[in-house]
């Protein structure tokens, strides 16, 4: 039995059955009133002036962190991307090894989640706004550099050999042939990173690095649900506005440098207003003061039950990927009509809005901690991202086949299954495999609240200042992410489609 393409995005939904059974066994009714009052507070957010001012301040800091980290990582990512391209080095010097060395050298920086960077930098720089910015800048810069280098290397403009044989200089060839070929997808990707940076700065805030995330976490922990919803609604408005602006720039990609310049200006303003950057104090550097002791270092490795920790991390990744991949097509088939797409977009937007640590905490109110619960929290958030990609793909498609199928007498559900779903499945699955790679990095986030996986072990090690264990765990996490990235790339080529430009 070989399922056809439109069924493949639905198959991961089967994992909801065992997950549901496990969660059903873990549910306790005690927290249900709390969850109900959280849901009810959505309709009555707090409108007290002091709360509104506090939330506005939180959003301001989150936005400054977002824009500054996005601006800096975009500029640095472009530079490193050019330097990491084999094609560029071949044009310049006839060699490719510097590009390969740079790529290999940068890969571990990309593999460590921004939250882990944040927690590590917190130990070095102390608590200030630049911790969140640098924590986002490091992985985002390297990720963008990889995307740009890949884009440059995979382009084969027909004019390239013609210009090379005409004796044009490397810079002329680069500017005339290579840059126009990659500009559109790269600028699309840079725009997409802004949305990612906003979500990352919110998550970093949840873990105490300032901004709206911190406010949301504090309000949630003190059960002030109305205040939580004030923040979430205002954040939703901000996200919608940002999305509108990004859509505007998507059709005018040549205008992308404008928000980039604005972001860098914000960096200047931000640093002068609230985000003072103190010179790092070497006294705070944990490894600076730690005595190098090989026995201690080796002993730390044995303190972790690696097979269990790695298996739990992979289980969370797999389950969350299944949930996030299957939910959007399942909802479409439950509600198959063109007019429902905007409403479905709203649902995905709401799921994107709530950071996974908050949704994990909310789920913990009614169920015992488990891998399924952590996976559900992560899966719902990433389902929001996948849902957005899915709806965008559906809206881009021309639905000729739907009309044909309806004319054959097929029901609306069948028409969507055989028509638009079949059409978008290939790029959607390619994006899902890329997303799996992102989810693997994100397991650190729910691990920190869900009590499972590498993230939880890392938090324990950080809390007990066990630096050797921290080092091993960060290294293990990076290695696992790189392996996952490799697998994701192989799967993407299986679908004959790359998710890079998204």
């Amino acid at each position: 039995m070989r399922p056809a393409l439109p069924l493949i995005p639905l198959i991961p939904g089967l994992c909801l059955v065992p997950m549901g059974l496990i969660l059903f066994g873990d549910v306790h009714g005690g927290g249900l009133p709390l969850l109900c009052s959280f849901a009810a507070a959505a309709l009555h957010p707090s409108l007290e002036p002091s709360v509104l001012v506090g939330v506005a301040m939180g959003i301001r800091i989150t936005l400054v962190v977002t824009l500054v980290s996005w601006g800096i990582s975009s500029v640095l990512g472009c530079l490193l991307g050019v330097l990491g391209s084999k094609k560029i080095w071949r044009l310049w010097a006839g060699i490719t090894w510097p590009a390969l060395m740079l790529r290999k050298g940068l890969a571990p920086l990309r593999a460590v989640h921004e939250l882990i960077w944040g927690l590590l930098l917190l130990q070095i720089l102390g608590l200030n706004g630049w911790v969140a910015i640098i924590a986002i800048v490091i992985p985002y810069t390297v990720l963008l550099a990889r995307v740009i280098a890949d884009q440059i290397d995979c382009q084969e403009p027909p004019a390239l050999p013609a210009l090379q044989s005409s004796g044009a200089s490397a810079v002329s060839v680069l500017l005339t042939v290579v840059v126009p070929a990659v500009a559109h997808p790269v600028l699309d990707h840079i725009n997409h990173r802004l949305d990612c940076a906003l979500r990352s700065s919110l998550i970093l805030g949840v873990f105490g690095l300032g901004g709206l995330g911190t406010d949301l976490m504090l309000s949630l922990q003190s059960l002030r649900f109305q205040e939580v919803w004030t923040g979430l609604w205002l954040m939703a408005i901000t996200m919608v506005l940002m999305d509108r602006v990004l859509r505007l720039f998507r059709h005018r990609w040549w205008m992308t440098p404008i928000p980039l310049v604005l972001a860098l200006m914000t960096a200047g303003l931000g640093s002068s207003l609230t985000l003072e950057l103190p010179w790092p104090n070497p006294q705070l550097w944990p490894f600076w003061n730690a005595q190098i002791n090989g026995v201690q270092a080796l002993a730390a490795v044995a303190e972790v039950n690696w097979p269990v920790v790695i298996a739990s991390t992979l289980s969370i990744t797999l389950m969350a990927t299944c949930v996030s991949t299957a939910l959007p097509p399942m909802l479409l088939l439950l509600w198959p009509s063109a007019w429902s797409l905007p409403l479905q977009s709203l649902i995905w937007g709401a799921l994107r809005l709530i950071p996974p640590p908050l949704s994990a905490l909310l789920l913990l109110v009614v169920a015992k901690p488990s891998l399924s619960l952590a996976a559900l929290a992560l899966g719902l958030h990433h389902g929001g991202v996948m849902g957005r990609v899915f709806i965008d793909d559906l809206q881009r498609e021309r639905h000729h086949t739907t009309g044909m199928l309806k004319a054959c007498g097929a029901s609306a559900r069948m028409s969507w299954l055989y028509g638009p779903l079949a059409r978008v499945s290939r790029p959607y699955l390619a994006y899902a495999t890329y997303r799996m790679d992102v989810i693997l990095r994100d397991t650190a986030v729910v691990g920190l609240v869900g009590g499972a996986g590498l993230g939880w072990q890392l938090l324990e090690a950080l809390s007990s200042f066990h630096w050797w264990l921290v080092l091993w765990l960060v290294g293990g996490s990076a290695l696992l992410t790189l392996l996952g990235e490799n697998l994701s790339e192989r799967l993407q080529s299986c679908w004959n489609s790359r998710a890079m430009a998204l």
Partner: protein
Amino acid sequence: MIALLELHQVSLGQRLRPVSLTIRAEERVVLLGASGAGKTTLLNLCNGSLRPEAGTIRWKGYPLQGLKRQQRRCIGTLWQDLRLIDELSVIQNINSGALGRHGLLWAIRNLLGRLEPKVCLELMKEVQLEPALLMRNIQDLSGGQRQRVALARLLRQMPELVLADEPLSALDPPLAKDVLDILLTLPSCVISLHRPELMHRFDRVLGLRNGELVLDASPETVNRQVLEELFAR
């Protein structure tokens, strides 16, 4: 002969001026006209994929837009751009013609490749497609093979009336003859063509010019002068 499709003062802006006509059971109708005359618009109005701005269309006396899905399958269309599902195999495409007669579970079984191929193989034989192509992806087929898959899908639908939009346009003469032979074995059809020399194989000729129905006659009465006027720019 009972009236299958009745159009009364149907119009769609500049694309189609008010048209009234009746298509009866067991009637084979050819629709002639130059490019842009409104042939595709008229056929799309007849199969319900376009809504008229004015006028009414009835299928066996019932308003076309209000038909249930089981009734809609009685009108089959062979689209000019074929509208095959590129992501599916030949058998899955052919079976998609029968979705109107089955439920969602049958549709899923088709996608899982769990349906008996017997009916599809018979249809493939009828349209002269090699059985070896049954499981092939539709994208691997040539233009002529794709045309025949679309025809097999139409036959799988088992419609009472067939609407075919330029079905011979991309085919070589022997294949075009075969396709037309198959279409003319169907009980009732309306086929738009660019080739007036084939009109004698039909019972009735409709002619469109600039969105206006200017000819409705039997083939014997249509002479060369009428055709020249019909195709004049």
